[in-house]
């Protein structure tokens, strides 16, 4: 292809350059409106009158995302225009709900949000050529696993699960970062080996079976997930990590046999855990029948179901649900993290909570679209892995609090309270935007 003269390139690139970011800017308008109304009603419900500080929160929020938007105009002009407004809306709903539960936590969450946006910008600028990551995948994968190992050895046990690492003044959840690092590793590894993994010569009972040596990564990932489950008691992270792996190996090879073998392996591992670990047993039994121990093991899920049911079609209204005891303690433990969806479903009802699920679905749609649009194997697998992880994490926690599947402690991306979760998800968002920026930039050229 012959390059057009410099003059022509500018003319071509310019409208495209502004189009994506202008779409983003326009998409921010409904986000800002919804956020202001939301904050105002939470304030009204909490303090019986609308305070000027509700305005400060909204303004701070709008200011932050507008600043990021302006920086994107320079750093990644071609990036997908809808992911950032969607993220802003999800974060705003999260902060609003957290403020309604405990204003002090909302202040902390705002700090985390700023940290997340900061790391997002750093990623956007310094990983502009993110494909260089492909050269360091083993190192990144090792760091990902090392973080998990460190947590297993030095971690603090909270609620029966060893997820937290205390460093200096605050604690972090390394699992959230491992998720992103291992996704990068898998994208590189599977891209490198996908032709080998896709070809098979042997058949067993007329089913094509991949050569045994190629099952190595499958078994390794299975081992890591099982270790997570048995040593960290973390069913959620284990399920998520293995699920991302199965989605990515399927994307890479197009062969349904891998998810099937993987599913069987995970099931056998889960069965082993069920027999070895009392905590896993309780999780399963509580899922099947939470009612018989509604004041003990089943308390959280039973209260979550009551809260969701109470919301009905239109919800009790922001700030008007029965979320807190008179003492200010939340009725459902972990309301601000794992169970934030129960609070949203109670106060915003079926209409609002379905809207939230639709936002997650749109986010996934854009992420998968980035995977399909991108034009190299590594980018495709990375975007598909991040998209799958996002969808799966949403499903695991929402399904858990609604008793669709056994409950496992995991955050709702961008909505739940939690520094590690927010920061790690913003890095993932940055990677998605970088991939789309590159793809669209190439097209515009």
């Amino acid at each position: 292809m012959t390059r057009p003269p410099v003059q022509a390139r500018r003319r071509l690139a310019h409208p495209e350059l502004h189009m994506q970011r202008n779409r983003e800017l326009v998409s921010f308008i409904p986000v800002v409106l919804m956020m202001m109304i939301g904050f105002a009603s939470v304030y009204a419900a909490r303090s019986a009158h609308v305070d000027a500080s509700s305005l400060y929160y909204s303004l701070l929020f709008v200011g932050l995302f507008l600043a990021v938007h302006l920086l994107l105009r320079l750093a990644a002009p071609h990036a997908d225009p809808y992911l950032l407004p969607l993220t802003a809306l999800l974060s705003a709903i999260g902060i609003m709900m957290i403020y309604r539960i405990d204003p002090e936590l909302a202040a902390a969450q705002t700090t985390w949000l700023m940290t997340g946006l900061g790391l997002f910008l750093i990623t956007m600028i310094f990983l502009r050529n993110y494909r260089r990551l492909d050269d360091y995948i083993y190192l990144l994968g090792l760091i990902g696993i090392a973080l998990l190992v460190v947590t297993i050895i030095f971690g603090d046990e909270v609620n029966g699960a060893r997820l937290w690492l205390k460093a200096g003044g605050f604690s972090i959840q390394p699992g959230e970062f491992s998720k992103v690092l291992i996704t990068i590793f898998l994208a590189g590894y599977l891209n490198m080996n996908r032709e080998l993994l896709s070809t098979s010569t042997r058949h067993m009972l007329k089913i094509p079976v991949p050569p045994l040596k190629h099952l190595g990564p499958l078994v390794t990932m299975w081992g890591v997930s099982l270790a997570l489950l048995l040593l960290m008691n973390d069913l959620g992270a284990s399920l998520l990590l293995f699920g991302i792996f199965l989605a990515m190996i399927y994307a890479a090879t197009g062969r349904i046999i891998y998810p099937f073998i993987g599913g069987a392996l995970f099931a056998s591992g889960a069965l082993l855990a069920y027999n070895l670990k009392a905590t896993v047993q309780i999780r399963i039994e509580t899922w099947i029948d939470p009612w018989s121990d509604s004041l003990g093991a089943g308390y959280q899920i039973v209260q979550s179901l009551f809260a969701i049911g109470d919301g009905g079609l239109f919800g009790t209204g922001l700030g008007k649900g029965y979320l807190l005891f008179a003492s200010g303690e939340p009725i459902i433990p972990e309301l601000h993290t794992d169970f934030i969806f129960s609070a949203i479903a109670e106060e915003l009802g079926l209409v609002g909570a379905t809207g939230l699920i639709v936002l997650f679905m749109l986010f996934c749609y854009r992420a998968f679209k980035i995977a399909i649009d991108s034009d190299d194997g590594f980018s495709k697998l990375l975007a598909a892995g991040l998209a799958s992880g996002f969808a799966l994490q949403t499903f695991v926690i929402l399904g858990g609090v609604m008793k669709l599947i056994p409950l496992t402690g995991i955050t709702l991306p961008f909505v739940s309270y939690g520094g590690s979760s927010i920061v790690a998800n913003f890095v993932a968002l940055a990677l998605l935007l970088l991939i789309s920026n590159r793809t669209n930039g190439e097209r515009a050229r």
Partner: protein
Amino acid sequence: MTPGMEMNSSIRRLFIVSVILFASLMAMLGYLQVIAADSLAENPQNTRKIYKQMRIERGLILAADRSLLAGNRLEEELYHREYPLGDLAPHLTGYSDPTYGQTGIERSLNSYLTGTADEVELVYLFDTLMGKEKRGADVRLALDPVIQKAAISQLQSIGKRGAVVVLDVNTGAVKAMVSAPSYDPNQLVANWEQLNADPGAPLLNRATQGLYTPGSSLKLITTAAALENGFQPDSSFNDENGNIVIHGNTINNWRDTPFGRHDLSEAFSQSINTTFAQVGDRLGQGSLLDYQQRFGLYEKPQLELPSGEIQASGRYLDGDLASPGDPLDPVQNAWLAIGQENMLVTPLQMAMIAQAIANEGKMMKPYLVDSIANHNGVIIRQTRPEQWKDPISPATAGQLKEMMIKVVNEGTGSRARTSLVQIAGKTGTAEIEGSGPNAWFVGFAPADSPRFAIAVVVEDSDSGGGISGPVARDTLLAALGYGPDN
């Protein structure tokens, strides 16, 4: 071809899988919030509803003189119910407890007391903007504690189970409603098992739920039917033996007393069964039933209590209200005319009959609640007295009144007589298998310009007039502002 294009179809399938996952989340959410919402709310383990209500300052329940029947005690930001007058009127106020639920006015007017009724909500909309705390509306009863206390102490001095209902003759307002034994709603939680095991059933509101055989007190209706169907107070009858054989079945008088020649008025004041059996036989089932229904039998009175705490009066077969049209043979019909044959009535129903006779034949709709006032003291619902039925003509009512005066002055109701005021009434003694009879007194005072109608029933006693008469007399005297007449 761009590298990796072959992955697009499997990535698309991954997206389809994620759409299926999201769709299943939405389906589950819809199931929980629409289909299962009611059963979740009604789940006995779900205390959200009651606790939510306990955060609202519940409206007060007040008597006619503004004395406090139900108030609140604030404990750890939750409002707990208190009943300062203890066992004075627990069957009217009911109770409101997070464990045992609600009864009485607490239940039937819960939406007003918690401020969730539409006309209360409207005010809050404004008040919330003004930064005021939400508070329920106050319910003011027509109940007069002086009359209520008099009736209670009368029943207590006898030491028997029973009930007293006093109605305002002109309005139908319930001025007193007593059910003995009573209980203290403040001690509900502590005494719950004991209260439920007690054979005296203290939680039962005998005044509206107690079904009693009316016996001779039902002759008020039989006589009304007779007077409007050709009989006169001086219609003549003969009673030779103290019993009569009607269609092969013997009906006898109280203690088989023979009364000889007499008129209808005499038969009424002496409660002569043989005469009323003949009257019933001659009137026939259709006419008797007509007048029973005119006086409201076979219908639940529309009092402001939960529907489950009110019983309709009428014939009961195997515990269920019989269809009024069920055909009776002439023998059954004769027994029905004197208040037997599975006829069961509530004390409230009998008080309403007395009220109608005293009010020139106009039966008023009974009511407990005088008004409801929102937290600012503004009346949002005021009960206006309403006529419910028009059972008999003023002339018939006048004739019945004269006959009822005679009962007290010369007949079976002489124990209700007092020099202070002319009382009119009718006694009843209903034989009960396995215990003493139920003693009735149904009447009103003052006879010349009636103000209060009363029904008294005392379980396991002797003759009606002997034991219920004094209870009615002293309760009516208290209502009219006199001391008890001994």
